[in-house]
C-alpha cells in the first residue's frame, strides 16, 4: 500500500511477567500521546492471569480458591471494563492513536466500533463471521469471542481487547466469578456457554501466528495504513519499569479501595503475589 501512512506493529510480550505486560500496555499509549512513537498496534499474551478492570473489586470478580489451586495471577489494568482470563492461547491486541488538540473530542464508542471492524475483517480472512455488539464485544453467533476496553489518555485514543484463540474455557469458568446479573442479561446461565474460541468455531487447531497475520491485514485494511514491525523505544521501556514499580506492583493497586468483601486470607494471598514480584 505505497503512500499509506505507516504505523508500528509491536509484538513484545512477557508471558510470565503479567504486571510488566500491563505496565507496557500503559506505557505505549502514553508515548504515542506524547508524540514520541508512531501510532501503534500491539499483539501480546499473558499466561494464566486474570486481568480485572480499573474499577473492579477483585473479591467480587474472582474465585480465590480456584486461583490458588491453578496458580492464576490477578492483575489490574488501567482501563475500565470487566474481568478477563488470559492464557497463552488468548491474543491481546491494543491500538494507540494520537489525537490532536484541535480534533473533536474522541468518541470511545466509535473507537470500539472501529477496532471491532478491524478485528472482524481479520477474522473474516479465516472464514469466521463475527459481529460487533455495542458497547465493546465481538460475537460469533450468540457467543462472545472478543471483548474490548479503552481509555482516552492525554493526546491519545486507546483501545485494547482480547481474542479467545484456543483458551482453556474450563479454567476460565473456574477462576472468574461472573455475576448472574451479567449472564442473565445475555440470556445464558454459565460463562463457559457465553464464550467461544476460534478453535471451537473453526473446529481445528489455530496457530497464533496465523491469527496475528490476519488481524494485521484486518487493521491495515480498516485504517488504510501499513504496519511495520518495531520494538519498544528506550523511553517506553523506562516508563514501563516505573509504572510496574510504582503502580502495578503497588499493593493497594491490585486490592483496590475496598477490602471488606474478601477474607483476610484472600487479601493476604494477593499481597503476597505482588510482593513476590517486586
Amino acid at each position, binding site marked *: 500500500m505505497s503512500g499509506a501512512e505507516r504505523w508500528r506493529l509491536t509484538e513484545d510480550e512477557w508471558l510470565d511477567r503479567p504486571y510488566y505486560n500491563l505496565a507496557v500496555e500503559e506505557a505505549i499509549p502514553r508515548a504515542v500521546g506524547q508524540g514520541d512513537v508512531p501510532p501503534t498496534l500491539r499483539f501480546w499474551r499473558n499466561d494464566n492471569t486474570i486481568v480485572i478492570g480499573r*474499577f473492579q*473489586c477483585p473479591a467480587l470478580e474472582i474465585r480465590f480458591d480456584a486461583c490458588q489451586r491453578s496458580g492464576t495471577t490477578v492483575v489490574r489494568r488501567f482501563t475500565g471494563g470487566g*474481568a478477563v482470563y488470559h492464557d497463552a492461547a488468548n491474543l491481546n491486541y491494543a491500538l494507540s492513536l494520537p489525537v490532536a488538540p484541535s480534533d473533536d473530542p474522541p468518541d470511545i464508542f466509535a473507537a470500539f466500533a472501529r477496532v471491532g471492524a478491524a478485528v472482524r475483517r481479520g477474522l473474516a480472512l479465516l472464514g469466521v463471521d463475527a459481529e460487533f455488539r455495542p*458497547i465493546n464485544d465481538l460475537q460469533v453467533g450468540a457467543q462472545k469471542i472478543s471483548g474490548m476496553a479503552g481509555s482516552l489518555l492525554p493526546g491519545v485514543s486507546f483501545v485494547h481487547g482480547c481474542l479467545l484463540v484456543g483458551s482453556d474455557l474450563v479454567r476460565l469458568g473456574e477462576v472468574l466469578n461472573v455475576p448472574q*446479573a451479567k449472564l442473565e442479561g445475555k440470556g445464558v446461565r454459565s460463562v463457559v456457554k457465553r464464550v467461544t474460541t476460534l478453535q471451537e468455531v473453526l473446529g481445528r487447531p489455530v496457530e497464533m501466528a496465523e491469527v496475528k497475520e490476519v488481524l494485521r491485514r484486518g487493521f491495515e485494511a480498516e485504517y488504510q495504513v501499513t504496519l511495520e514491525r518495531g520494538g519498544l523505544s528506550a523511553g517506553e521501556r523506562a516508563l514501563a519499569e516505573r509504572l510496574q514499580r510504582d503502580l502495578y506492583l503497588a499493593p493497594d493497586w491490585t486490592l483496590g*479501595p475496598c477490602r*471488606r468483601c474478601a477474607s483476610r486470607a484472600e487479601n493476604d494471598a494477593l499481597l503476597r503475589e505482588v510482593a513476590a514480584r517486586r
Partner: protein
Amino acid sequence: MHCKTVWKAPKGKLVRVCLDVEGGKLHRVVFTGDFFWEPSDDVDALGEALEAAPAEPTEIRRRVAAFFSDHPARLFGATQEDFAEVVLQALSASRPPADGAQ
C-alpha cells in the same frame, strides 16, 4: 450495618456499591464495577462525597447530581443516575455482613 449490591445499568455495565450505615448515615461508600469513567480518580471521590450522607433517597440523589455537576465525567456503560440507584438498591436490600468478611 454493611451493605453491598450490584446494579445492572439498563443496556450497560454493572455498577456495584459497598457501604456501611451507622446512625442512619452512609459511611465508607465504594463504587466498583465494569463501567468506564474518566477521569478515573473521580470514582473514589464520588464515594467520599457521600460520606456521612443521610441514608435517604432524596438526599442521596441530590448529592450524586451535585457531584457530577462539579466533576464533569465521561461515563460509558453507566449513567450518573445509576450510581444513585445502586446505593438505593443496597439500602433496600441490606443484610448482615457475610462470615469472614473484613
